[in-house]
């Protein structure tokens, strides 16, 4: 697979480490309690279709990316820097 790195252009997926569901960006507030953390730690969506997921450019510039990928076709619909996504959400 080739991942369109927002800073570096198309990069081979072999340079990346995969983490999974980008919901991991949304760490609960410490006051949210155990149940919220339990959801955060253990529950992931695994859709057959469009999925937003985290990839780490470990053999590259160390950027964490949020990649939007269709898990059925492996089509990649976009890639953003995680810190930009997080900044936008904040």
């Amino acid at each position, binding site marked *: 697979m080739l991942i369109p790195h927002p800073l570096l252009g198309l990069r081979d997926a072999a340079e990346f480490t995969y983490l999974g569901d980008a919901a*991991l960006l949304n760490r609960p507030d410490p006051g949210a309690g155990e149940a919220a953390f339990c959801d955060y730690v253990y529950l992931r969506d695994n859709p057959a279709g469009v999925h937003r997921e985290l990839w780490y450019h470990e053999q590259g510039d160390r950027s964490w990316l949020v990649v939007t990928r269709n898990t059925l076709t492996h089509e990649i619909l976009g890639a953003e820097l995680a810190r930009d996504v997080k900044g936008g959400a904040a």
Partner: protein
Amino acid sequence: MTRLSGGLIDRSKVLSFTFDGVRYSGHPGDTLASALLANGVQLMGRSFKYHRPRGVVSSGSEEPNALVELRSGNRQEPNTRATVAELFDGLEARSQNYLGRLDRDLLAVNDLLSPFFAAGFYYKTFMWPKAFWEKLYEPAIRRAAGLGRVAEGADPDAYDKGFLHADLLVIGGGAAGLAAALTAGRAGAKVILADEDSRFGGRLLAESHLLDGAPATQWIEGVLAELCTMPNVRLLPRTTVFGVYDHGIYGAVERVADHLPTPGAGVRQTLWRITAKRAVLAAGATERHIPFADNDRPGILLGGALRAYANRWATAPGTDRPVAIFTCHDEGHRTALDLQARGVPVAAVIDSRNDAVAQGDYRLIAGGQVSGSQGRLGLRGISVTTASGTEAIACGALGVSGGWNPNVHLSSHHRGRPVWDDTLGAFVPGPGGPGGLLVAGAARGKGSTALALADGAEIARQALAELSITAPVIALPQAEDTAPNGTTLWHVPGKGRAWVDFQNDVTVKDIALAHKENMRPVEHLKRWTTLGMATDQGKTANVTALAVMAELTGKTIAETGTTIFRPPYTGVSLAVLGGGDTGPDFRPRRLTPTDVFAKSQGAAFVEVGQWMRAQYFPKPGETHWRQSVDREVIAVRRDVGLCDVTTLGKVDVQGADAGEFLNRLYSNMMGTLKVGMVRYGLMLREDGFAYDDGTCARLAAHHYVVTTTTANAGLVFRNMEFARQCLWPELDVQLISTTDAWAQIAVAGPKSRALLERIVDGFDLSNAAFPFMACAELTICGGLRARLFRISFSGEMAYEIAVPARYGNALMERLMQQGADLGVTPYGTEALAVLRIEKGHAAGAELNGQATAAMLGLGRMVSQKKDSIGAIMSRREGLAGETRRLVGLIPEDGQGAIPGGAHLFTEGAARNMETDQGWVTSTCHSPHLGHPIALGYLEGGDTRLDEVVIAANPLEGTETRVRVVSPHFIDPEGERLRG
């Protein structure tokens, strides 16, 4: 010898080879199959299941029958198709799958028992009794089945892998592929042209058609000469593109030296990972055979293969009798004309069409079908049935032409489904295949030479247009342009066994049985009958089988469906997939900065992660590793020792919010650490379990250096970057891994201060100025910048000193030289481990991903005053209620070894999961105490000091009585550290 005139073989050179030990000769340009045919050898192997005598069927990579073993010794390679094995001088080949002699295979008894071996036989028969499978059925079946034998030893040849990039990858170098490559090459695009054959030209090499009135090779050579002059074109002959992967990535194997006796200094094969913006699949087509009773005898070939052997390789099977042709298509008549032109007598052309017309001077049997064959080890004759009866025709070979199946394989790799084209009577590539892959020529049913040429050029232009590259219209040669004219004939009905899949011995009857047993969906049919599941993946069988099933169900072929093709197109050796990443080259090896020193000392090495670390430093006279390790440990406890600890991960953390960032990463507080001091830190996973520990040194207000364990260096850094970018991007903090930048040496032992005083540049090392857990930046050895940390893993007064990595070895040697009179001793990872077990420090065996901070005795390190990763989850019921604790264990009898991994039980309790009290994590002999010691987790361990428990190792049936003690076997008050 059956050599005809002409052909593309070099008669000026003679190559000698052996087949089943018999010496034969051939010429450069021959394949093993063509050379065997030219030597009159038709019997090339035995079939997989019934051990039927088999000869070559095809002239290409689709070959189901002529599977042979090539070479010998550790280069022995089974299941190689004789049709694609290039002949070289000295080639050794053997037939496969028989017991005794190929011509008198004892296992041919299976053929007599064939009524019992119908489809699904194994599934039905060997189910019961269950226990018989492993001991009786499977070994017997494995002995009888299977094809060639692999070499027993390691492959002596080198393999490689590489990366290529192109605008346009052209797969297949026949008429369409050459036209595509030439078009793209002239457009200036970056082109790769790959073909599985040793020679470009595809079917042009096998046919007698003229291009611009001249033999096709003239045009081919002209095109190749032009392509060779283009720096933007790369030609890859002997290269099979075997799979399409995501986003325009193609897997290809180049057989660099398979056509040579040995690769010499070069590689045998190369695995290419080709990234192409667009690709043209010009893979041509595979001819269909027509199943009839006993259609598998040696001498029965595909008609196109007969033409290929005659035109390209100047040979024909069957020496003493004429050749017959069975066809439902005009194609068969061309075979007759080509053979006659080469002087091969044609007995008859049997055409299933009633209105067939002879195209030359040969006997035509219109409206006839071949209904049987004779000849035990080679064809002697056929039975031909027409409306007026059955006639026997003597012949030594039969060419069967049932039409062509486009090679759609790669176009269906991404769940692209081929679609049935009724006009062509064939499956053609459907929509939804791999993105960026366009199909041209016979691979999409445009099979005449003129059509293929024009289509190749046009599809290349389309592909390049998608890349905004304008390609010229190239001049194409005048070529044959006959429209396909024929019908479909899927099998000849009759009583005998009519083979559909030669390699897996699947007959029309097997398909009928699968139908009867309701295994009708294509995927069920495959698995029930094993059709298409042999090494050839049913290239000559799948479509015919579908058609037979369609006929049985009364559905159309389109309704019956098709199977999905998966990579690889043809077999790929595991060796080339490894691509040379074997043995010591399996993965990168990282050498420590003091590697040269350690080697000079004759150290034993151990792999830790990717690092090669010194394990211990044997001295002359030491014959057992324990002697060396005990000596090293004692030297540290008594004098001073040196250990390269560079491999521990180091992360430089800087920024105004560095302290706050580390507060959130570590379970304990780091923001309050004073500048110039170090603190032990524990990291949890977000699920609350401990996962790594290390030290955190504050060099300046906004500058920390943290360390990780060697094993987790990469993971911790990744998680720190996750925290920085994904959780708290608002914090002003920057990270960099400095593991490789700084060489770090532990200087441990009571004389460590005395040694360091000799190399620091006027730095006050006194306890008052530089106490336990202090850190500083300083210079040593007259100006070399260094970092000094007063930290201890051994429990002794100790320091770790870091210098730029390139000075690491020199520093080690300087310390050895300066400390000679202090008894300075280098120590390795074994002594390091003993020292830390004696001190009760946790390492990988304790930080196993299932331990809580409390288990480690570090429960209070999880700060209640702040949030940090894992803090919330560490307080949940299951974790907070964990009562196992780290304890020390000593043998009650003072000498018995404590087995690592042993589980702990209360005396008298049963040994099971319910009564399990914990386990032994780390164990060693303590030279300091003079007896074995261990660390372990024990239920309520902190309240059970002095109790005797059982360390049980049920795997070996051993039990040791052990006494529970403090995990700090040495200096529990920490006086040595602070000395």
